């Protein structure tokens, strides 16, 4: 501390004492060890990227730093002083700020009210009006234009992230961690955020950039640390190692070239399977999230829907699954026995037609973690009758466990002890089995490792090819949409803004996603 006071501009002194230093950190959750003996030093004036595939422990690490999780073992040192961070509030007081992928803002409150929660200079009794005035001045200074009196749910995703950045700036943080905060932003918006990050570095702040995208880490950061299965497998300056070496570190021996799966265009039967006409669906706050979407999916065809998160794709899939009211328009499913109008018929009717559904929040709506694997299968009306034959369910569970290579102690284990990937496999296994005619999926391979993700995408493609299943696969990961879809539609602000065939150039899709 004192050295900074005496030599405020001495770069070498700053470089010697890390802003944040993590030593021998361990953290486990029931069923998984998320962090194993992690060591990390972050210095002032440095952008430090943490790379790792999904489930490598990146988020756990940064949430531990931010006081959300308490570590099992290990020390955190801030500016050379050992620190026990007990809560996010505590972390903020020590100069650490976290910007997450999902904006950590309360939707029903206004921007000013949200930021008022962070700004300690205002007392508990001070009025919201005074916070609004303060914010207007500050926004002017940083060149961010968001009305502080707007409720957060009315903001776009990019605007919400800007509010988060504004928060970090206002708090005079010494270290800001971006937890996949830029991953979902379109390229142009991403650049804007990078500018803020560079500005922050210039002022002597330290930045932790958590991401699973190698190019992103290479583009902006000074230093990269790679995590795999909760362990640090390498830490180096950008430019010291090649991208292939990083890939090897991230994925280990399992690493295979993702482009090896067939890129060929398939010829699809002419019969229509899903016909959507001028669909209008409201979002959670009463405004239209889907604005007149029309599309057709043929038998055996897979439609991939790409788009920046929060552009109506979630509401679209939910309304197709019968879980959200359709205000206007129709959905017609053509199954073997004929055409069925399923608009607002409810999930029971839709699922009865042989529709599988992989929802957006698996733990909330797709699987019950307090129940066993067997119960999570038997709960589907297509997989058990009034009297449940538990022996048959057990056989089914065993066969799926071996088919999908699920790691579990038994078929009667509660799902909550499984890791995120294994849990997801149970859900996918069940839904692919019941998807006789149609599969609806939202981010179907989230939290799966690369190999399993490719396997699942191939299963979906095989089922479409061999059994004539049609699918609507929405993913926030453009690579996934390009790998799985026969056709690709891009959704932007609730409207379909582009249709592409398989094998289209990535840049072309990105362009319509943003504008």
């Amino acid at each position, binding site marked *: 501390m004192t050295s900074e006071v005496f030599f405020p501009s001495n770069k070498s002194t700053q470089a010697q004492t890390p802003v944040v230093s993590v030593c021998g950190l361990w953290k486990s959750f029931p069923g998984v060890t998320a962090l194993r003996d992690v060591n990390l030093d972050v210095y002032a004036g440095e952008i430090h990227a943490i790379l790792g595939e999904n489930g490598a422990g990146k988020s756990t690490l940064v949430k531990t730093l931010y006081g959300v999780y308490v570590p099992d073992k290990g020390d955190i040192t801030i500016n050379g002083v050992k620190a026990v961070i007990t809560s996010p509030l505590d972390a903020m007081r020590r100069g650490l700020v976290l910007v997450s992928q999902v904006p950590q803002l309360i939707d029903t409150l206004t921007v000013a009210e949200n930021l008022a929660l962070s700004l300690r200079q205002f007392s508990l009794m001070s009025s919201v009006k005074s916070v609004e005035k303060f914010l207007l001045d500050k926004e002017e200074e940083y060149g961010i234009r968001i009305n502080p009196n707007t409720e957060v749910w009315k903001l776009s995703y990019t605007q919400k992230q800007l509010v988060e950045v504004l928060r970090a700036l206002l708090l005079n943080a010494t270290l800001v961690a971006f937890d996949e905060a830029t991953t979902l932003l379109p390229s142009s918006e991403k650049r804007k955020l990078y500018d803020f990050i560079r500005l922050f570095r210039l002022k002597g702040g330290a930045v932790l950039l958590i991401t699973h995208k190698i190019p992103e880490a290479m583009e902006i950061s000074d230093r990269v640390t790679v995590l795999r299965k909760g362990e640090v497998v390498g830490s180096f300056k950008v430019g010291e190692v090649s991208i292939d070496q990083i890939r090897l570190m991230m994925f280990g021996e399992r690493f295979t070239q993702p482009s090896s799966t067939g890129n060929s265009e398939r010829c699809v039967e002419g019969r229509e399977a899903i016909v959507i006409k001028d669909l209008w669906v409201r979002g959670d706050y009463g405004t239209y999230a889907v604005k007149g979407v029309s599309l057709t999916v043929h038998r055996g065809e897979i439609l991939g829907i790409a788009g920046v998160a929060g552009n109506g794709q979630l509401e679209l899939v939910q309304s197709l699954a019968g879980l959200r009211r359709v205000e206007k328009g129709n959905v017609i499913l053509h199954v073997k026995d004929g055409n069925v109008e399923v608009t607002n018929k409810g999930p029971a009717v839709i699922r*009865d037609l042989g529709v599988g559904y992989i929802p957006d929040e698996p733990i909330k709506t*797709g699987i019950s973690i307090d129940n066993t694997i067997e119960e999570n299968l038997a709960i589907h009306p297509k997989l058990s009758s009034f*009297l449940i034959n538990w022996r048959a369910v057990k056989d089914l569970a065993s066969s799926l466990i071996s088919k999908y290579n699920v790691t579990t102690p038994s078929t009667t284990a509660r799902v909550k002890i499984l890791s995120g990937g294994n849990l997801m496999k149970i859900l996918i296994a069940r839904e692919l089995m019941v998807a006789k005619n149609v599969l609806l999926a939202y981010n179907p391979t989230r939290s799966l490792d690369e190999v399993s993700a490719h396997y699942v995408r191939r299963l979906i493609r095989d089922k479409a090819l061999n059994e004539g299943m049609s699918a609507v696969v929405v993913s926030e990961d453009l690579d996934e949409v390009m790998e799985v879809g026969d056709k690709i539609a891009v959704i932007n602000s609730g409207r379909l803004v582009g249709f592409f065939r398989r094998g289209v150039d990535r840049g072309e899709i990105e362009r319509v996603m943003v504008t």
Partner: protein
Amino acid sequence: MVVVKRVSAYTICDLLRLLSGGKLAVRSSRACFDLYYVGIPILSIGIGLLISAIIFYTVGVPLDLFINEIGAGFQSYQTLRYSVLLLMLSVGLVMSFKASVWNVGAEGQMIWGMLAGGFVGLFIASCAIYVSPSELSSYISVPGVEVLDASPVKPVISVLRMNPLLGQLLMILAAMLAGGLWALIPAFLKAYVGIDEVASTLILNYVAYQVYNHLVAYVMRGLSVQARQFLRTDRLNSALLFESLPGTTVTLQEVILSLLFFVSMLTLYKYTSIGLRLRVAGSNPQLLRSVGIDERKYVLMAMLLSGMLAGAAGVSILANPGIGKLEKIANVVTPPTFNLGYTAILVSWLSMLDLRLVPVYAYVVASLFQGGGLLQSEVNARFPGLSLTGAALTYIPIGSILLVYVVLRVLVDYSVRFRR
């Protein structure tokens, strides 16, 4: 203090440090079976009773008297009756609690069971009529007829109108129907309007008590002099009363009913899709919706099942030869249900919502319940100055055992760790 999640076991040392003000960290884990299913309930009962004993001790109830009377509850012949009633009520509540439907309205549902069963018993399966004093003697020998009021001015007799077994069966069915229907009101409010069922079931208990009073005072009021005087119904025709098992106050019919309910609920729960769906409705109702099952129907189902069983328990109280009639409720703290509807919540929670454990804890809690009653009469006889009421003696132990249980469960479900 910090809340976290992790796997290792929690120790007595940790508890001591918690008590001495150390920093507490809570983490999620599942302790071993024995500790979980036996340790927590027994420990809660122990600590809860200790707290109650201390509370009562402060006003001068000697500790040894407390211990003796509670201990006597475990051997009392009355205990068996309470165990059977609590078993019947609690298996129903467990079914509903498993679905995360917190039915706290068993009291009201029992009341409706009493009313419907009583109505069938008093006005359909039998009836009470005035006869002229001169004819009274000629009726005495007629089978199925008994004298309710032998007053020389207006004698009243009760006439059996059907086979008593059929009559009892009708009484039970009517009670179950009424209890179930009453339970469906808060169920609808929860499922379709989103009104919290804990509040609405409790509020409906108060409504049920007043409906009961109204019906007993006006509609079902008896003909006999005592009935007119004390606002109560006539006694049930003794042929319709349930049959006491020799040497006890428990009746054959309620034993059969509770065993029947126990076995059928166990089967329903383990081997049918209804049981599975109730379970999943409790852990993740959105999953039900997503796979195309209307989760709201299972809220209704959970309430219906527990309400029907509570109705049966209500009529079992009424048809006990020791009771046999409905009397106006003087004060809502002493309803004719003996507050068993609330006590059954205790049994369900102590059983960790595991049906197989319900009989055990039904017996344990019945013993405490009976012990509390013994304590009250003993205290009132020996220390008349203390003025301990029944409400104090039932609610304080129930409340403190439950509170200790709730906290202990968290301490074991999430093992506790401490940090500087």
